[in-house]
Protein backbone atom coordinates (compact mmCIF):
# COMPACT_ATOMS: atom_id res chain seq x y z
CA UNK A 1 0.00 0.00 0.00
CA UNK A 2 2.90 2.35 0.65
CA UNK A 3 3.65 2.51 -3.04
CA UNK A 4 0.08 3.60 -3.67
CA UNK A 5 0.75 6.71 -1.67
CA UNK A 6 3.44 7.86 -4.08
CA UNK A 7 2.32 10.69 -6.33
CA UNK A 8 1.13 9.65 -9.73
CA UNK A 9 2.83 11.17 -12.78
CA UNK A 10 0.99 14.35 -13.53
CA UNK A 11 -0.20 15.82 -16.76
CA UNK A 12 0.89 19.13 -18.21
CA UNK A 13 -0.08 22.04 -16.01
CA UNK A 14 -0.70 19.81 -12.96
CA UNK A 15 1.54 20.06 -9.91
CA UNK A 16 2.14 16.85 -7.94
CA UNK A 17 1.48 18.54 -4.59
CA UNK A 18 -1.83 20.09 -5.51
CA UNK A 19 -4.74 17.69 -5.08
CA UNK A 20 -6.96 17.48 -8.12
CA UNK A 21 -9.67 15.15 -9.31
CA UNK A 22 -7.05 13.11 -11.18
CA UNK A 23 -4.61 12.45 -8.39
CA UNK A 24 -6.73 12.27 -5.23
CA UNK A 25 -7.05 8.55 -4.65
CA UNK A 26 -5.26 6.74 -7.47
CA UNK A 27 -5.25 3.40 -5.61
CA UNK A 28 -8.95 3.36 -4.75
CA UNK A 29 -10.99 1.76 -7.48
CA UNK A 30 -14.60 1.53 -6.36
CA UNK A 31 -17.11 2.08 -3.58
CA UNK A 32 -16.90 -1.51 -2.33
CA UNK A 33 -13.16 -1.17 -1.77
CA UNK A 34 -13.75 1.90 0.40
CA UNK A 35 -16.30 0.05 2.55
CA UNK A 36 -14.09 -2.99 2.88
CA UNK A 37 -10.86 -1.20 3.73
CA UNK A 38 -12.36 1.29 6.14
CA UNK A 39 -14.36 -1.37 7.98
CA UNK A 40 -11.19 -3.47 8.28
CA UNK A 41 -9.67 -0.72 10.43
CA UNK A 42 -12.28 -1.44 13.11
CA UNK A 43 -10.72 -4.82 13.98
CA UNK A 44 -8.94 -4.45 17.34
CA UNK A 45 -5.26 -5.35 17.42
CA UNK A 46 -2.68 -6.00 20.13
CA UNK A 47 -1.07 -2.61 19.46
CA UNK A 48 -4.40 -0.88 19.96
CA UNK A 49 -5.03 -2.66 23.28
CA UNK A 50 -1.51 -1.75 24.43
CA UNK A 51 -2.03 1.91 23.48
CA UNK A 52 -5.42 1.98 25.22
CA UNK A 53 -3.96 0.42 28.37
CA UNK A 54 -1.20 3.06 28.39
CA UNK A 55 -3.75 5.86 27.97
CA UNK A 56 -5.92 4.50 30.80
CA UNK A 57 -2.84 4.15 33.02
CA UNK A 58 -1.94 7.83 32.41
CA UNK A 59 -5.56 8.78 33.11
CA UNK A 60 -5.51 6.88 36.40
CA UNK A 61 -2.37 8.76 37.42
CA UNK A 62 -4.22 12.00 36.63
CA UNK A 63 -7.34 10.98 38.58
CA UNK A 64 -5.38 9.91 41.66
CA UNK A 65 -3.37 13.12 41.56
CA UNK A 66 -6.56 15.16 41.31
CA UNK A 67 -8.08 13.32 44.28
CA UNK A 68 -4.90 14.11 46.22
CA UNK A 69 -5.20 17.78 45.24
CA UNK A 70 -8.86 17.95 46.29
CA UNK A 71 -7.87 16.47 49.65
CA UNK A 72 -4.82 18.69 50.20
CA UNK A 73 -6.04 21.88 48.55
CA UNK A 74 -4.79 23.93 45.60
CA UNK A 75 -1.52 24.66 47.38
CA UNK A 76 -0.42 21.18 46.37
CA UNK A 77 -0.39 22.41 42.78
CA UNK A 78 2.50 24.81 43.10
CA UNK A 79 0.50 28.02 43.04
CA UNK A 80 2.05 30.76 45.08
CA UNK A 81 1.40 34.49 44.95
CA UNK A 82 1.63 36.28 42.60
CA UNK A 83 1.35 33.35 40.17
CA UNK A 84 -2.14 32.03 40.81
CA UNK A 85 -2.70 30.75 37.28
CA UNK A 86 -0.39 27.95 36.29
CA UNK A 87 -0.29 24.63 34.51
CA UNK A 88 -4.08 24.17 34.59
CA UNK A 89 -4.89 27.38 32.74
CA UNK A 90 -1.95 26.81 30.38
CA UNK A 91 -3.20 23.32 29.62
CA UNK A 92 -6.80 24.53 29.29
CA UNK A 93 -5.76 26.99 26.57
CA UNK A 94 -3.54 24.33 25.00
CA UNK A 95 -6.37 21.81 24.63
CA UNK A 96 -8.94 24.36 23.44
CA UNK A 97 -6.40 25.39 20.82
CA UNK A 98 -5.87 21.78 19.73
CA UNK A 99 -9.57 21.54 19.00
CA UNK A 100 -9.56 24.45 16.60
CA UNK A 101 -7.76 22.74 13.76
CA UNK A 102 -10.47 20.10 13.69
CA UNK A 103 -13.20 22.62 13.11
CA UNK A 104 -11.01 24.50 10.65
CA UNK A 105 -10.48 21.34 8.63
CA UNK A 106 -14.03 20.04 8.88
CA UNK A 107 -16.00 23.30 8.54
CA UNK A 108 -13.89 26.13 7.13
CA UNK A 109 -12.11 24.00 4.55
CA UNK A 110 -15.49 22.48 3.64
CA UNK A 111 -16.79 25.94 2.77
CA UNK A 112 -13.61 26.63 0.81
CA UNK A 113 -13.98 23.30 -1.01
CA UNK A 114 -10.43 22.29 -0.12
CA UNK A 115 -10.08 18.75 -1.45
CA UNK A 116 -7.40 17.60 0.97
CA UNK A 117 -9.74 17.87 3.95
CA UNK A 118 -11.82 14.86 2.90
CA UNK A 119 -9.47 12.18 4.12
CA UNK A 120 -8.41 13.83 7.40
CA UNK A 121 -11.49 15.70 8.54
CA UNK A 122 -13.12 12.87 10.49
CA UNK A 123 -10.01 12.29 12.60
CA UNK A 124 -9.60 16.04 13.09
CA UNK A 125 -13.21 16.50 14.09
CA UNK A 126 -13.05 13.66 16.62
CA UNK A 127 -9.83 15.23 17.90
CA UNK A 128 -11.73 18.50 18.37
CA UNK A 129 -14.48 16.92 20.43
CA UNK A 130 -12.07 15.04 22.69
CA UNK A 131 -9.74 18.04 23.00
CA UNK A 132 -12.63 20.27 24.11
CA UNK A 133 -13.74 17.55 26.54
CA UNK A 134 -10.22 17.59 27.95
CA UNK A 135 -10.00 21.40 28.02
CA UNK A 136 -13.32 21.65 29.85
CA UNK A 137 -11.88 19.70 32.78
CA UNK A 138 -9.18 22.25 33.55
CA UNK A 139 -11.22 25.24 34.73
CA UNK A 140 -13.05 22.76 36.98
CA UNK A 141 -9.75 21.39 38.32
CA UNK A 142 -8.38 24.93 38.65
CA UNK A 143 -11.22 26.27 40.80
CA UNK A 144 -10.14 23.89 43.54
CA UNK A 145 -13.68 23.07 44.65
CA UNK A 146 -14.99 21.40 41.51
CA UNK A 147 -18.41 20.72 43.03
CA UNK A 148 -19.13 24.47 42.88
CA UNK A 149 -18.65 24.63 39.11
CA UNK A 150 -22.37 24.89 38.36
CA UNK A 151 -22.40 28.35 39.94
CA UNK A 152 -21.07 29.67 36.62
CA UNK A 153 -24.18 28.54 34.75
CA UNK A 154 -27.16 30.91 34.77
CA UNK A 155 -30.07 29.02 36.28
CA UNK A 156 -32.91 30.08 38.59
CA UNK A 157 -31.91 29.40 42.19
CA UNK A 158 -33.20 30.08 45.68
CA UNK A 159 -30.34 32.48 46.37
CA UNK A 160 -31.59 34.65 43.49
CA UNK A 161 -27.97 34.89 42.34
CA UNK A 162 -26.92 35.20 38.71
CA UNK A 163 -23.45 35.10 37.13
CA UNK A 164 -21.60 38.30 36.34
CA UNK A 165 -22.15 38.50 32.58
CA UNK A 166 -19.32 41.00 32.17
CA UNK A 167 -16.77 38.49 33.41
CA UNK A 168 -14.63 36.77 30.75
CA UNK A 169 -14.87 33.56 32.78
CA UNK A 170 -18.64 33.47 32.16
CA UNK A 171 -18.02 34.21 28.47
CA UNK A 172 -15.75 31.17 28.50
CA UNK A 173 -18.48 28.96 29.91
CA UNK A 174 -20.84 29.93 27.09
CA UNK A 175 -18.17 29.73 24.40
CA UNK A 176 -16.76 26.36 25.44
CA UNK A 177 -20.15 24.72 26.03
CA UNK A 178 -21.40 25.99 22.66
CA UNK A 179 -18.22 24.84 20.97
CA UNK A 180 -18.44 21.37 22.51
CA UNK A 181 -22.13 21.00 21.62
CA UNK A 182 -21.68 22.17 18.04
CA UNK A 183 -18.51 20.24 17.30
CA UNK A 184 -19.94 17.00 18.69
CA UNK A 185 -23.21 17.53 16.81
CA UNK A 186 -21.29 18.26 13.61
CA UNK A 187 -19.24 15.11 14.10
CA UNK A 188 -22.34 13.00 14.72
CA UNK A 189 -24.32 14.40 11.78
CA UNK A 190 -21.40 13.69 9.45
CA UNK A 191 -21.20 10.16 10.85
CA UNK A 192 -24.85 9.22 10.19
CA UNK A 193 -24.37 7.99 6.58
CA UNK A 194 -21.26 6.05 7.61
CA UNK A 195 -23.12 4.49 10.53
CA UNK A 196 -25.68 3.28 7.99
CA UNK A 197 -22.86 1.62 6.03
CA UNK A 198 -21.65 -0.08 9.22
CA UNK A 199 -25.22 -1.16 10.03
CA UNK A 200 -25.63 -2.71 6.61
CA UNK A 201 -22.26 -4.49 6.62
CA UNK A 202 -22.21 -5.64 10.26
CA UNK A 203 -22.76 -9.33 10.92
CA UNK A 204 -22.69 -9.31 14.73
CA UNK A 205 -26.36 -8.85 15.75
CA UNK A 206 -25.62 -6.73 18.85
CA UNK A 207 -23.31 -4.34 17.01
CA UNK A 208 -25.75 -4.25 14.09
CA UNK A 209 -28.50 -3.18 16.44
CA UNK A 210 -26.33 -0.49 17.99
CA UNK A 211 -25.36 0.86 14.57
CA UNK A 212 -29.02 0.72 13.50
CA UNK A 213 -30.00 2.88 16.46
CA UNK A 214 -27.12 5.30 15.97
CA UNK A 215 -27.79 5.68 12.24
CA UNK A 216 -31.41 6.64 13.04
CA UNK A 217 -32.81 4.54 10.20
CA UNK A 218 -30.83 6.42 7.54
CA UNK A 219 -31.54 4.97 4.07
CA UNK A 220 -29.43 7.09 1.69
CA UNK A 221 -32.54 8.32 -0.10
CA UNK A 222 -32.46 11.40 -2.32
CA UNK A 223 -34.73 13.21 0.17
CA UNK A 224 -32.35 12.46 3.05
CA UNK A 225 -29.26 13.51 1.10
CA UNK A 226 -30.91 16.75 -0.04
CA UNK A 227 -31.68 17.87 3.50
CA UNK A 228 -28.43 16.44 4.84
CA UNK A 229 -26.28 18.42 2.40
CA UNK A 230 -28.12 21.63 3.16
CA UNK A 231 -27.92 21.08 6.93
CA UNK A 232 -24.23 20.19 6.72
CA UNK A 233 -23.52 23.37 4.78
CA UNK A 234 -25.35 25.57 7.29
CA UNK A 235 -23.69 23.86 10.22
CA UNK A 236 -20.30 24.47 8.60
CA UNK A 237 -21.28 28.09 8.06
CA UNK A 238 -22.21 28.45 11.73
CA UNK A 239 -19.17 26.56 12.98
CA UNK A 240 -16.81 28.80 11.00
CA UNK A 241 -17.37 32.03 12.96
CA UNK A 242 -17.72 29.93 16.11
CA UNK A 243 -14.19 28.60 15.79
CA UNK A 244 -12.90 32.15 15.45
CA UNK A 245 -14.98 33.37 18.38
CA UNK A 246 -14.10 30.65 20.86
CA UNK A 247 -10.39 31.28 21.00
CA UNK A 248 -11.02 35.02 20.85
CA UNK A 249 -13.13 34.59 23.98
CA UNK A 250 -10.36 32.49 25.56
CA UNK A 251 -7.91 35.30 24.72
CA UNK A 252 -10.22 37.77 26.51
CA UNK A 253 -9.49 35.87 29.74
CA UNK A 254 -6.09 37.51 29.45
CA UNK A 255 -6.64 40.61 27.33
CA UNK A 256 -9.35 42.01 29.64
CA UNK A 257 -6.94 42.06 32.58
CA UNK A 258 -4.72 45.05 33.29
CA UNK A 259 -1.60 42.93 33.38
CA UNK A 260 1.62 43.60 31.45
CA UNK A 261 1.84 41.43 28.35
CA UNK A 262 -1.88 40.60 28.41
CA UNK A 263 -3.75 43.84 27.87
CA UNK A 264 -3.40 43.97 24.07
CA UNK A 265 -5.86 44.13 21.19
CA UNK A 266 -3.69 41.73 19.20
CA UNK A 267 -4.73 38.83 21.44
CA UNK A 268 -7.83 37.48 19.63
CA UNK A 269 -6.23 36.99 16.17
CA UNK A 270 -2.97 35.91 17.81
CA UNK A 271 -4.78 33.23 19.82
CA UNK A 272 -6.86 32.02 16.89
CA UNK A 273 -3.80 31.63 14.65
CA UNK A 274 -1.92 29.89 17.46
CA UNK A 275 -4.84 27.57 18.07
CA UNK A 276 -5.05 26.51 14.46
CA UNK A 277 -1.28 26.07 14.29
CA UNK A 278 -1.19 23.88 17.39
CA UNK A 279 -4.20 21.90 16.19
CA UNK A 280 -2.57 21.11 12.87
CA UNK A 281 0.47 19.97 14.82
CA UNK A 282 -1.71 17.55 16.77
CA UNK A 283 -3.42 16.41 13.56
CA UNK A 284 -0.01 15.35 12.24
CA UNK A 285 0.83 13.65 15.55
CA UNK A 286 -2.35 11.58 15.27
CA UNK A 287 -2.77 11.08 11.54
CA UNK A 288 0.75 10.01 10.61
CA UNK A 289 0.88 6.92 12.87
CA UNK A 290 -2.81 6.22 12.15
CA UNK A 291 -2.42 6.08 8.37
CA UNK A 292 0.53 3.74 8.83
CA UNK A 293 -1.02 1.33 11.37
CA UNK A 294 -4.38 1.28 9.56
CA UNK A 295 -2.71 1.05 6.13
CA UNK A 296 -4.61 4.07 4.93
CA UNK A 297 -1.75 5.66 2.96
CA UNK A 298 -3.82 5.56 -0.21
CA UNK A 299 -6.64 7.54 1.44
CA UNK A 300 -4.62 9.96 3.55
CA UNK A 301 -2.13 10.59 0.79
CA UNK A 302 1.13 12.49 0.77
CA UNK A 303 -0.67 15.16 -1.24
CA UNK A 304 -3.09 15.67 1.67
CA UNK A 305 -0.28 15.87 4.21
CA UNK A 306 1.61 18.22 1.92
CA UNK A 307 -1.38 20.57 1.70
CA UNK A 308 -1.90 20.42 5.49
CA UNK A 309 1.82 21.14 5.97
CA UNK A 310 1.44 24.31 3.89
CA UNK A 311 -1.40 25.39 6.17
CA UNK A 312 0.85 24.62 9.13
CA UNK A 313 3.63 26.75 7.63
CA UNK A 314 1.23 29.62 6.98
CA UNK A 315 -0.19 29.61 10.52
CA UNK A 316 3.35 29.33 11.93
CA UNK A 317 4.25 32.51 10.07
CA UNK A 318 1.12 34.27 11.37
CA UNK A 319 2.00 33.19 14.91
CA UNK A 320 5.60 34.32 14.38
CA UNK A 321 4.38 37.68 13.17
CA UNK A 322 2.19 37.98 16.27
CA UNK A 323 5.19 37.24 18.54
CA UNK A 324 7.25 39.93 16.82
CA UNK A 325 4.34 42.40 16.82
CA UNK A 326 4.01 41.99 20.59
CA UNK A 327 7.63 43.10 20.97
CA UNK A 328 7.08 45.96 18.58
CA UNK A 329 3.98 47.13 20.47
CA UNK A 330 5.94 47.10 23.74
CA UNK A 331 8.88 48.93 22.13
CA UNK A 332 6.74 51.62 20.51
CA UNK A 333 4.36 52.05 23.45
CA UNK A 334 7.00 53.81 25.53
CA UNK A 335 5.53 51.97 28.51
CA UNK A 336 8.38 51.01 30.82
CA UNK A 337 6.49 48.21 32.54
CA UNK A 338 5.52 46.62 29.23
CA UNK A 339 9.06 46.92 27.89
CA UNK A 340 10.57 45.44 31.04
CA UNK A 341 8.13 42.57 30.89
CA UNK A 342 9.06 41.64 27.33
CA UNK A 343 12.78 42.00 28.09
CA UNK A 344 12.29 39.68 31.05
CA UNK A 345 10.42 37.26 28.83
CA UNK A 346 13.22 36.71 26.30
CA UNK A 347 16.42 37.58 28.15
CA UNK A 348 15.48 37.29 31.81
CA UNK A 349 13.84 34.89 34.17
CA UNK A 350 11.75 33.06 31.57
CA UNK A 351 14.18 33.10 28.64
CA UNK A 352 14.41 29.32 28.55
CA UNK A 353 10.66 28.95 28.03
CA UNK A 354 10.45 31.78 25.51
CA UNK A 355 13.24 30.35 23.41
CA UNK A 356 11.66 26.89 23.40
CA UNK A 357 8.51 28.62 22.11
CA UNK A 358 10.30 30.67 19.47
CA UNK A 359 12.42 27.80 18.16
CA UNK A 360 9.58 25.25 18.06
CA UNK A 361 6.91 27.56 16.63
CA UNK A 362 8.86 29.98 14.45
CA UNK A 363 12.18 28.46 13.46
CA UNK A 364 11.57 24.73 12.94
CA UNK A 365 8.40 25.12 10.81
CA UNK A 366 10.45 27.14 8.28
CA UNK A 367 11.64 23.70 7.13
CA UNK A 368 8.20 23.25 5.59
CA UNK A 369 9.20 25.56 2.75
CA UNK A 370 10.94 22.45 1.43
CA UNK A 371 8.56 20.25 -0.53
CA UNK A 372 10.78 17.25 0.21
CA UNK A 373 10.29 17.75 3.96
CA UNK A 374 6.55 18.43 3.59
CA UNK A 375 6.25 15.01 1.99
CA UNK A 376 8.48 13.29 4.54
CA UNK A 377 6.15 11.75 7.12
CA UNK A 378 8.96 11.07 9.61
CA UNK A 379 9.95 14.72 9.63
CA UNK A 380 6.33 15.86 9.80
CA UNK A 381 5.76 13.64 12.83
CA UNK A 382 8.91 14.86 14.61
CA UNK A 383 8.04 18.47 13.79
CA UNK A 384 4.50 17.98 15.08
CA UNK A 385 5.89 16.89 18.47
CA UNK A 386 8.02 20.04 18.58
CA UNK A 387 4.96 22.12 17.65
CA UNK A 388 2.93 20.54 20.47
CA UNK A 389 5.72 21.29 22.93
CA UNK A 390 6.24 24.78 21.52
CA UNK A 391 2.56 25.64 21.72
CA UNK A 392 2.26 24.41 25.31
CA UNK A 393 5.21 26.66 26.14
CA UNK A 394 3.61 29.53 24.26
CA UNK A 395 0.76 29.43 26.77
CA UNK A 396 3.28 29.04 29.61
CA UNK A 397 5.07 32.16 28.34
CA UNK A 398 1.78 34.06 28.17
CA UNK A 399 0.50 33.02 31.60
CA UNK A 400 3.44 32.75 33.97
CA UNK A 401 5.84 35.61 33.05
CA UNK A 402 3.02 38.18 33.10
CA UNK A 403 1.80 37.17 36.55
CA UNK A 404 5.29 36.85 37.97
CA UNK A 405 6.41 40.28 36.70
CA UNK A 406 3.58 42.76 37.24
CA UNK A 407 3.78 46.50 37.91
CA UNK A 408 5.49 46.68 41.29
CA UNK A 409 8.88 45.03 41.88
CA UNK A 410 7.81 43.84 45.33
CA UNK A 411 5.10 41.82 43.60
CA UNK A 412 7.57 39.91 41.44
CA UNK A 413 7.90 36.23 42.08
CA UNK A 414 8.44 32.86 40.50
CA UNK A 415 6.56 29.70 39.76
CA UNK A 416 7.51 26.06 39.79
CA UNK A 417 4.94 23.38 38.93
CA UNK A 418 4.81 20.43 41.33
CA UNK A 419 4.35 16.72 40.68
CA UNK A 420 0.60 17.32 41.10
CA UNK A 421 0.58 19.65 38.08
CA UNK A 422 2.58 17.18 36.03
CA UNK A 423 0.38 14.26 37.13
CA UNK A 424 -2.80 16.04 36.07
CA UNK A 425 -1.16 17.17 32.81
CA UNK A 426 -0.23 13.56 32.07
CA UNK A 427 -3.75 12.48 33.02
CA UNK A 428 -5.19 14.91 30.47
CA UNK A 429 -3.23 13.22 27.70
CA UNK A 430 -4.46 9.87 28.99
CA UNK A 431 -8.08 11.10 28.97
CA UNK A 432 -7.76 12.51 25.45
CA UNK A 433 -6.07 9.47 23.94
CA UNK A 434 -8.40 7.03 25.73
CA UNK A 435 -11.41 8.59 24.02
CA UNK A 436 -9.59 8.87 20.73
CA UNK A 437 -8.46 5.25 20.77
CA UNK A 438 -11.97 4.07 21.64
CA UNK A 439 -13.32 6.17 18.77
CA UNK A 440 -10.98 4.82 16.10
CA UNK A 441 -11.96 1.21 16.77
CA UNK A 442 -15.70 1.77 16.90
CA UNK A 443 -16.26 4.29 14.11
CA UNK A 444 -14.69 4.95 10.72
CA UNK A 445 -11.67 7.27 10.81
CA UNK A 446 -12.19 8.39 7.24
CA UNK A 447 -15.55 9.57 5.97
CA UNK A 448 -16.79 6.72 3.78
CA UNK A 449 -19.55 8.71 2.06
CA UNK A 450 -17.30 11.67 1.29
CA UNK A 451 -14.51 9.51 -0.11
CA UNK A 452 -17.09 7.85 -2.37
CA UNK A 453 -18.28 11.27 -3.47
CA UNK A 454 -14.85 11.98 -4.92
CA UNK A 455 -14.50 8.61 -6.65
CA UNK A 456 -15.83 8.32 -10.17
CA UNK A 457 -19.00 6.18 -10.03
CA UNK A 458 -19.29 3.09 -12.17
CA UNK A 459 -20.79 3.99 -15.55
CA UNK A 460 -22.48 1.70 -18.03
CA UNK A 461 -20.97 3.63 -20.92
CA UNK A 462 -17.47 2.87 -19.56
CA UNK A 463 -18.20 -0.83 -19.25
CA UNK A 464 -19.40 -1.34 -22.79
CA UNK A 465 -23.07 -1.36 -21.86
CA UNK A 466 -25.50 -1.20 -24.71
CA UNK A 467 -27.59 1.83 -25.45
CA UNK A 468 -31.28 1.88 -24.72
Amino acid at each position, binding site marked *: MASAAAPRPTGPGERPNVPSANNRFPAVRDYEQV*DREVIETLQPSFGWFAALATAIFCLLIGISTWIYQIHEGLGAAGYQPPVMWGVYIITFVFWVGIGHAGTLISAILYLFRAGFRTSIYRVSEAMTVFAVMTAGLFPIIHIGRPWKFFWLIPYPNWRLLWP*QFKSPLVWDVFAILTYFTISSTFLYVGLIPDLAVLRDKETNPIRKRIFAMLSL*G*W*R*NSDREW*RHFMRAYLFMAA*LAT*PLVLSVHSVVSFDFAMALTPGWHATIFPPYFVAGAIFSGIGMVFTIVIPLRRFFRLQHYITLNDLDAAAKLCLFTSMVVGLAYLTEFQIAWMSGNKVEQDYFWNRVFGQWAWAAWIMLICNMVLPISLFSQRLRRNTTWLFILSIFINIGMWFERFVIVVPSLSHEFEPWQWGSYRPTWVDYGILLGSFGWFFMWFLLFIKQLPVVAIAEIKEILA*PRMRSQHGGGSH
Partner: protein
Amino acid sequence: MQGVVAAFHELDSAVHAVEELKKRKYGDVTVYTPTPRHEFEDVLGAPESPVRKFTLVGGLCGVTFGYWIAIWCSKYWPLVVGGKAVASWVPYTIFGFEVMVLIGALSTVIGMFANSRIPRLTMTVGYDPRFSGGHFGVWVETTPEQAEEVSALLRRHGAEEVRSER
Protein backbone atom coordinates in the same frame (compact mmCIF):
# COMPACT_ATOMS: atom_id res chain seq x y z
CA MET B 1 -47.42 0.99 0.02
CA GLN B 2 -46.68 -1.15 -2.98
CA GLY B 3 -44.00 -0.71 -5.56
CA VAL B 4 -40.99 -1.95 -7.41
CA VAL B 5 -37.38 -1.63 -6.31
CA ALA B 6 -34.41 -1.94 -8.61
CA ALA B 7 -30.68 -2.13 -7.86
CA PHE B 8 -28.29 -0.61 -10.38
CA HIS B 9 -24.56 -0.94 -10.39
CA GLU B 10 -24.01 1.92 -12.84
CA LEU B 11 -24.93 5.51 -12.16
CA ASP B 12 -25.89 6.50 -15.71
CA SER B 13 -28.24 3.52 -16.04
CA ALA B 14 -30.06 4.54 -12.88
CA VAL B 15 -30.27 8.18 -14.02
CA HIS B 16 -31.73 7.18 -17.40
CA ALA B 17 -34.22 4.84 -15.71
CA VAL B 18 -35.41 7.60 -13.37
CA GLU B 19 -35.64 10.01 -16.30
CA GLU B 20 -37.99 7.67 -18.14
CA LEU B 21 -40.02 6.85 -15.04
CA LYS B 22 -40.62 10.56 -14.47
CA LYS B 23 -41.48 11.07 -18.14
CA ARG B 24 -44.08 8.31 -18.05
CA LYS B 25 -45.50 9.70 -14.79
CA TYR B 26 -45.63 6.57 -12.67
CA GLY B 27 -45.96 6.97 -8.89
CA ASP B 28 -43.46 8.58 -6.53
CA VAL B 29 -39.84 7.77 -7.28
CA THR B 30 -37.23 7.51 -4.52
CA VAL B 31 -33.56 7.13 -5.37
CA TYR B 32 -31.03 5.57 -2.98
CA THR B 33 -27.37 6.46 -3.51
CA PRO B 34 -24.32 5.57 -1.39
CA THR B 35 -23.24 9.19 -1.62
CA PRO B 36 -25.04 12.38 -2.71
CA ARG B 37 -25.19 12.51 -6.53
CA HIS B 38 -26.21 15.71 -8.22
CA GLU B 39 -27.08 13.81 -11.37
CA PHE B 40 -30.40 12.81 -9.79
CA GLU B 41 -31.36 16.26 -8.55
CA ASP B 42 -32.26 17.64 -11.98
CA VAL B 43 -34.02 14.46 -13.02
CA LEU B 44 -36.13 14.29 -9.86
CA GLY B 45 -36.79 18.03 -9.82
CA ALA B 46 -36.89 18.16 -6.02
CA PRO B 47 -37.64 21.53 -4.43
CA GLU B 48 -35.11 23.50 -2.38
CA SER B 49 -34.63 22.08 1.11
CA PRO B 50 -36.49 24.09 3.78
CA VAL B 51 -33.74 23.40 6.33
CA ARG B 52 -32.46 26.98 5.87
CA LYS B 53 -35.70 28.31 7.41
CA PHE B 54 -35.06 26.28 10.55
CA THR B 55 -31.55 27.73 10.69
CA LEU B 56 -32.82 31.28 10.31
CA VAL B 57 -35.59 30.99 12.89
CA GLY B 58 -33.31 29.13 15.33
CA GLY B 59 -30.54 31.69 14.89
CA LEU B 60 -32.89 34.62 15.47
CA CYS B 61 -34.40 33.01 18.56
CA GLY B 62 -30.89 32.24 19.82
CA VAL B 63 -29.53 35.75 19.41
CA THR B 64 -32.63 37.18 21.09
CA PHE B 65 -32.37 34.77 23.99
CA GLY B 66 -28.61 35.35 24.35
CA TYR B 67 -29.01 39.11 24.72
CA TRP B 68 -32.17 38.76 26.81
CA ILE B 69 -30.75 36.38 29.42
CA ALA B 70 -27.69 38.59 29.97
CA ILE B 71 -29.67 41.83 30.15
CA TRP B 72 -32.48 40.40 32.29
CA CYS B 73 -30.08 38.80 34.77
CA SER B 74 -28.07 42.03 35.04
CA LYS B 75 -31.18 44.05 35.77
CA TYR B 76 -32.53 41.45 38.19
CA TRP B 77 -29.30 41.33 40.21
CA PRO B 78 -27.61 44.67 39.52
CA LEU B 79 -23.88 44.77 40.11
CA VAL B 80 -23.01 48.43 39.87
CA VAL B 81 -19.31 48.91 39.24
CA GLY B 82 -17.80 52.37 38.83
CA GLY B 83 -21.10 53.90 37.78
CA LYS B 84 -21.03 51.96 34.52
CA ALA B 85 -24.12 50.68 32.74
CA VAL B 86 -25.67 47.69 34.46
CA ALA B 87 -26.51 46.07 31.12
CA SER B 88 -23.83 46.64 28.51
CA TRP B 89 -24.47 45.48 24.96
CA VAL B 90 -20.78 45.18 23.98
CA PRO B 91 -19.86 42.20 26.19
CA TYR B 92 -23.38 40.81 25.85
CA THR B 93 -22.82 40.45 22.11
CA ILE B 94 -20.71 37.42 23.03
CA PHE B 95 -23.79 35.75 24.56
CA GLY B 96 -25.96 36.88 21.66
CA PHE B 97 -23.51 35.37 19.19
CA GLU B 98 -22.78 32.13 21.04
CA VAL B 99 -26.43 31.32 21.70
CA MET B 100 -27.30 32.24 18.09
CA VAL B 101 -24.78 29.68 16.85
CA LEU B 102 -25.93 27.10 19.40
CA ILE B 103 -29.65 27.33 18.76
CA GLY B 104 -29.19 28.01 15.03
CA ALA B 105 -27.10 24.85 14.56
CA LEU B 106 -29.36 22.68 16.72
CA SER B 107 -32.42 23.93 14.82
CA THR B 108 -30.65 23.05 11.58
CA VAL B 109 -30.25 19.49 12.80
CA ILE B 110 -33.88 19.37 13.92
CA GLY B 111 -34.88 20.72 10.50
CA MET B 112 -32.84 18.05 8.77
CA PHE B 113 -34.33 15.30 10.95
CA ALA B 114 -37.89 16.53 10.50
CA ASN B 115 -37.62 16.90 6.73
CA SER B 116 -35.72 13.65 6.24
CA ARG B 117 -38.21 11.90 8.54
CA ILE B 118 -35.57 10.47 10.82
CA PRO B 119 -35.15 8.90 13.35
CA ARG B 120 -36.98 6.00 11.74
CA LEU B 121 -37.55 2.97 13.91
CA THR B 122 -38.06 0.46 11.12
CA MET B 123 -36.65 0.37 7.62
CA THR B 124 -39.39 1.09 5.14
CA VAL B 125 -40.06 -1.12 2.16
CA GLY B 126 -37.91 -0.54 -0.86
CA TYR B 127 -34.57 -0.31 0.94
CA ASP B 128 -31.74 -2.74 0.36
CA PRO B 129 -28.45 -2.80 2.33
CA ARG B 130 -26.57 -2.67 -0.97
CA PHE B 131 -27.69 0.94 -1.40
CA SER B 132 -25.26 2.13 1.25
CA GLY B 133 -22.48 0.17 -0.43
CA GLY B 134 -21.88 0.34 -4.15
CA HIS B 135 -25.34 0.16 -5.69
CA PHE B 136 -27.86 2.77 -6.72
CA GLY B 137 -31.45 1.97 -5.85
CA VAL B 138 -34.66 3.12 -7.47
CA TRP B 139 -37.99 2.64 -5.73
CA VAL B 140 -41.20 3.37 -7.65
CA GLU B 141 -44.66 3.33 -6.13
CA THR B 142 -46.95 1.45 -8.49
CA THR B 143 -50.36 -0.11 -8.67
CA PRO B 144 -50.37 -3.93 -9.00
CA GLU B 145 -51.22 -3.53 -12.68
CA GLN B 146 -48.26 -1.26 -13.37
CA ALA B 147 -45.69 -3.39 -11.52
CA GLU B 148 -44.85 -5.65 -14.45
CA GLU B 149 -44.52 -2.74 -16.86
CA VAL B 150 -42.25 -0.78 -14.50
CA SER B 151 -40.12 -3.86 -13.82
CA ALA B 152 -39.60 -4.31 -17.54
CA LEU B 153 -38.61 -0.68 -17.92
CA LEU B 154 -36.07 -0.91 -15.11
CA ARG B 155 -34.59 -4.13 -16.50
CA ARG B 156 -34.30 -2.57 -19.92
CA HIS B 157 -32.20 0.20 -18.40
CA GLY B 158 -29.75 -2.30 -16.94
CA ALA B 159 -31.05 -2.94 -13.42
CA GLU B 160 -29.08 -5.75 -11.79
CA GLU B 161 -32.09 -6.88 -9.77
CA VAL B 162 -35.75 -5.87 -9.83
CA ARG B 163 -38.36 -6.99 -7.34
CA SER B 164 -41.85 -6.02 -6.25
CA GLU B 165 -42.38 -5.14 -2.61
CA ARG B 166 -45.26 -4.13 -0.43
